[in-house]
């Protein structure tokens, strides 16, 4: 059974119908690259998966945790879904280590020492084991984003959502973040990424989902889809970004 199931999902922003019936199944261990123009609904779709956006019709299920339209109790779902943001969103009043520990301490009620060990392990995983006590404003953008990944991983999510996680980075910092994501993919983490890094999507992605005007317009293996797009809209999109 699919780890993430999205069923006939509809969402409106006022009179604007932004998601027009999305059906998408994501298997455990898959790396999904969500692409499309701005306004195509790809970020909105990603954000509905952990309840940051509500939806009006349809259903989302992650690892057996089902949510319906306008659900308000999202804690169980959010413990299964991690998220990394474009703007990092680290907590500026906490050190890198405390950022990673916070949710395990509060939500998982993990004892201090255990949470600290876990946080160290997570920082080691993203190559920042020596930055435990550094504050976010003492870190580069790439380092901050790696801390944000470690923070999400500490909750041991079943699936990790990445919302344009390299878009706010200086070009020379992009690769260190993508390298971390690539390692996660290799370890079998289920990833859903909204991305503009087409080369990365082709290299690491298992499935490419092209969104167009609120619909899933075309999906397929990234290597095939890039070489041989089936719809003129995707062909135009690929043409425009290359």
């Amino acid at each position, binding site marked *: 059974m699919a780890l993430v199931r999205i069923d006939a999902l509809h969402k409106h922003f006022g009179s604007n119908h932004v998601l027009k019936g999305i059906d998408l199944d994501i298997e455990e261990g898959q790396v999904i690259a969500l692409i499309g123009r701005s306004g195509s609904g790809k970020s909105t779709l990603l954000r509905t998966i952990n309840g940051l956006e509500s939806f009006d019709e349809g259903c989302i299920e992650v690892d057996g945790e089902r949510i319906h339209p306008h659900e308000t109790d999202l*804690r169980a779902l959010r413990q299964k879904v991690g*998220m990394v943001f474009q703007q990092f*969103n680290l*907590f*500026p*009043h906490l050190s890198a280590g405390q950022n990673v520990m916070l949710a395990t301490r509060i*939500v998982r009620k993990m004892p201090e020492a255990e949470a600290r060990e876990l946080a160290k392990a997570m920082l080691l995983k993203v190559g920042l084991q020596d930055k435990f006590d550094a504050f976010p404003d003492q870190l580069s953008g790439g380092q901050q984003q790696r801390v944000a990944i470690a923070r999400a991983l500490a909750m041991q999510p079943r699936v990790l959502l990445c919302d344009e996680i390299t878009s706010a980075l200086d070009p020379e910092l992009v690769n260190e973040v993508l390298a971390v994501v690539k390692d996660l993919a290799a370890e079998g983490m289920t990833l859903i990424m909204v991305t503009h890094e087409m080369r990365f999507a082709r290299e690491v992605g298992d499935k490419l989902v092209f969104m167009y005007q609120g619909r899933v317009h075309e999906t397929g293996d990234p290597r095939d889809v890039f070489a041989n797009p089936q719809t003129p809209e995707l062909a135009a999109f690929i043409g425009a970004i290359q």
Partner: protein
Amino acid sequence: MNDISTWDIVRNLFDGAVWTLALSLTAFVFGGLAGLAILFARIAKHALPRRLALGYIEIFQGTPLLMQLFIIFFGGSLIGLEISPWIAAAIGLTLFTSAYLAEIWRGCVEAIPKGQWEASASLALSRFEQMRHVILPQALRIAIAPTVGFSVQVVKGTAVASIIGFVELTKTGSMLANATYQPFLVFGFVALGYFALCYPLSAYARTLERNLHGARSH
């Protein structure tokens, strides 16, 4: 009335100033606690507590403090409650302070970027946990200077309690002015008394603001 010396005036005013200080502290401590509760209601997820809190804030910001004291003091005796001027003044100033502080703090909470809410929500923190561990610690930093600044308004606001007969600095002043026929001298001292209470607070607020602007984020 030559038997009241300048020293007597100063000594009596000092006693009055102690009550001004006591009233200010009471209003500030209880007003702060109540203000925190109103803040939570003001930014609640549900519309009802939000509206109630807004109504509360607008009533206390939209009417003179003096009327609020009159209503508590005279309204109390109307329904058979014997309320002393001290209690009436403490209640009135506490309510007044809570409404203003709730509104000041709401501004500080809303100054925290939306991404902080989203990041903490996606880590499965409850709304209360988000406030407690992520939003308030950051909002507190930017709230300190305006909060200390507002405490000056509370100290000066206590003067209206003199009208319902609470003997603090202003009331002591008017009694002394009547007894000595030296209103200029007496109220000069009264003004100095308020200045001595308020100036350190506003100077401190200014220092905090300066430090905050030049400060790192931790």
